[in-house]
Structure formats: C-alpha cells, structure tokens
C-alpha cells in the first residue's frame, strides 16, 4: 500500500476507510482499527483525524495507533455524543470517513538524549500511545522512558494489553494507579499526580508529555514544576469542539490560539494560564 507523506489540505472532503476490528477497551470505550480504501497517509504522534460516520456526522479523534504503520489506523473512542456512540457500535467491514491528520504533534525529538516522562489519565493514554510506540521503536535515542497511568478504577484502564507488556519490559518504567479499587486490584490506589515525586527521572533533563482531563493536566504540570522540571519541557494536549480541523471554523479557540492549527499539543507556558481562566 502506498503511504503518502503530505495530507491533502485543500479539501474538506472525507476519505473512505473500512473498519477492520472494533476492540472493547472499557464499558464505554472502544478502539476502532481501520484501513484506507486508497493510499495511507503518514501521521505524527499526537495528531488527530476528523472521523465521519455515514449520515451521522464527524468527531475529532486522536490517533492511538503506531505511526510506523499508518495503513492500519486506530482511534480510541468514548461514547459521549451522536457520532462517538455510533462509532462504538460499528461492525467490521463498515465504511467510515477520515480527514486528517491535523494538528501539531508531540515534540518527541525534544526528548532525545533526555528522560521521557509520559503521564496519562483515563482515555488520555490513547493520544500519547503513538509517542510511546515511536519512542520504544527508537529506544536508544532516549534515556529513561517513564509512563505514569491513572484511571478512575481498574475497569477504566485502557490498553491493558500494552500495560502488561510494558510492565515486563525493562525499556520502559510503567507505574499504574487508580482513584479507587475493590479487592482483586493489587496495584496502587491514588491520583496519578501522586506518582510524580516518587518515580525516578531527572526533572532537570526530561521532557514530559501529559494527556488527560484539564484538571488532571493542571495537577500534573504543577507536580512536575514542583519537582524542578522547566515549564517549557512540559507538554499537554487540549480538547475543544472542532468542526473543520484546518483553522477556519472558529470553534476550537482558546484565547489567542486555535487548537486545530496551533495545538492540540502545547508547551505549558503557552496555555497554563489560559487553562486557569474559567469558561475561556
């Protein structure tokens, strides 16, 4: 299959992809694997697509699969609206539409030669997963690779297969915690940000990628700063309503920035203060 480097940016037209598998992650989250009907389009970790369901509409969804294999694209989706609910009930073989990839990716190259610290809350593991896979594929370029994962409860953890594999892999230091648990969970209980002071990494020479609800990202950034990490090495990814993906519909504004054009990945100094303004 041909892989195209530059996505067509001159059109708002969707491209047909065929659903290959639908993997249940939690009771309301699935990962949908799709294959392009025509050429595959290369993407960078942290970018997103506009996914169209026939007759229902579009939703902006982060890509959660390996950037080395754009011919099998995955998006991990929580059922919250019309489109995402429809995506949760797709059958293999169904055609869906894809526009993208859009947005500024994670600055993975900045972490080369440094410790890479990835912090994910809940479904926030999905947008950082391509970065982790890319980092592990070129592991020698990084020093420590640390992953801190938080979820509301053990049954809300996504990509558990990956977490099991990574837990046994000396190339990556994985710490998983949940907000609350019942018997049967032998791991940590507590918020993911509580791990920040405890895990080994060099805060003065590390790059952090943080993805989760905004409240969690604020706590995480504060924890990293308290540990001595320079603020411009902390990166977060934001979410707003998106309609076009190309900076012309106006929906994804956060003060001076348009998320689809300037983000969704931002360095902390770019958005930290904006995130504290209510209803901005």
């Amino acid at each position: 299959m041909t892989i195209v480097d530059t996505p067509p940016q001159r059109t708002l037209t969707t491209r047909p992809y065929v659903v290959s598998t639908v993997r249940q992650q939690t009771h309301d989250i699935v990962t949908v694997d799709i294959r392009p009907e025509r050429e595959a389009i290369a993407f960078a970790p942290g970018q997103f697509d506009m996914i169209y369901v026939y007759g229902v509409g579009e939703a902006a969804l982060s890509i959660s699969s390996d950037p080395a294999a754009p011919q099998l694209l995955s998006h991990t989706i929580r059922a919250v609206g019309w489109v995402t609910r429809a995506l949760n009930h797709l059958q293999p073989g169904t055609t869906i539409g894809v526009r993208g990839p859009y947005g500024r990716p994670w600055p993975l190259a900045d972490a080369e030669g440094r410790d890479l610290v990835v912090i994910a809350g809940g479904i926030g593991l999905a947008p950082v997963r391509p970065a982790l896979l890319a980092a592990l594929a070129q592991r020698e370029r990084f020093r420590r690779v640390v992953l801190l994962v938080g979820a509301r409860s053990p049954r809300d953890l996504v990509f558990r297969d990956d977490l099991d594999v990574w837990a046994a892999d000396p190339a990556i230091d994985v710490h998983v915690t949940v907000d609350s648990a019942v018997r049967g969970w032998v791991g940590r209980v507590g918020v993911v940000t509580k791990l920040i002071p405890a895990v080994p990494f060099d805060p003065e020479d590390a790059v952090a990628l943080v993805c989760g609800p905004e409240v969690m990202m604020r706590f995480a950034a504060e924890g990293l700063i308290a540990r001595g990490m320079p603020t411009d090495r902390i990166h977060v990814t934001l979410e707003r309503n998106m309609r076009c993906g190309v900076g012309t519909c106006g929906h994804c504004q956060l003060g001076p920035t348009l998320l689809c054009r300037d983000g969704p990945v931002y360095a902390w100094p770019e958005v930290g203060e904006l995130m504290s303004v209510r209803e901005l």
Partner: protein
Amino acid sequence: MSQEPLPRGDAEQLRSAIAAHAFCHGIAADHIAAMADAATSLELPAGSFVFRRGGPTTAFYLVTEGSIALEVASPGRDPLTVETLHAGEALGWSWLFPGRDWQFDARCLDDVTTVAIDATRLRTLVDDDPAFGRDLVLRIGRVVVDRLIHARAQLVDIHHHDDR
C-alpha cells in the same frame, strides 16, 4: 492492634531506619534518637492489617518496605481502597489527638516492614520539646495537605469526563 508485634530490632537499626525515612529528612539526631527509643520495628505479612477502623491510635507508622491499602468496608460489598501507601510514606495522624480511633482499615498488600512509634511517648516528646513538636506537627501537616489535595482530585473524578 490486631497483630502481634514482632521482636524488637536493636536500637541502632531503628535509628538508622527512622533517619533514612523520607518523612524524617532533616530531623536532628537527638530527636531521631528519642523517636527510636519509642519505636518498634514491625514486619507484617501480606493480607494482615496494620490497624483496623475503630481501633485505638496507639502508634505512628513509617513504612519502610511494601505497600499498604487504606480501605473502607461496607456490608454486602467488597472493601473499597481509597489510597495505597508505599515505602517512604507515613501512615496515620489520628494519634496526634488522644482518644481518637483509626478511621480506615490499613491492610498490607504485600510483606510490609514499618517502624511503629508509640503514640503516647511521641505526644510526650511533642509536649516536652516545643521546637521538635512544631517541626513534627508541620511535617504531619504537609502530609495531611498533600493527602487532602489528592483526595479532592479524586473527588472531582478527574478521569471521568474525557472524550478524546
């Protein structure tokens, strides 16, 4: 308490365990020694309880090995773990106030080693040496503030509303 204290280790071992614990970084040597005089080393097997809800607050614990779950039990349901504590963390602050009971069950998730400092003797130390007392209470206060922030973060259900 629900378990038999294991035989007490020697004083020197206790002193170095307390001095090396993250909670005690920077405490003066004589105060470390005074704490060690009031301390016992506890080794608890996985599944056993450090204390149970309603039990008397007889000690302050410094976890040196293993993990402990703070649990709430309710009838007809599995106990709910609200937080886990690990090596390097302090367990319990109700002991500061005489007559209070433990509010949670503290259950060992694996084999746990802790330093248990006798609550009555520790309160006497706090009362007799205001400088040490202030330092210790501030340290506990910092732990309480951190736990409260974490508890609030859990309260807002920070992983729930996310649609990526």
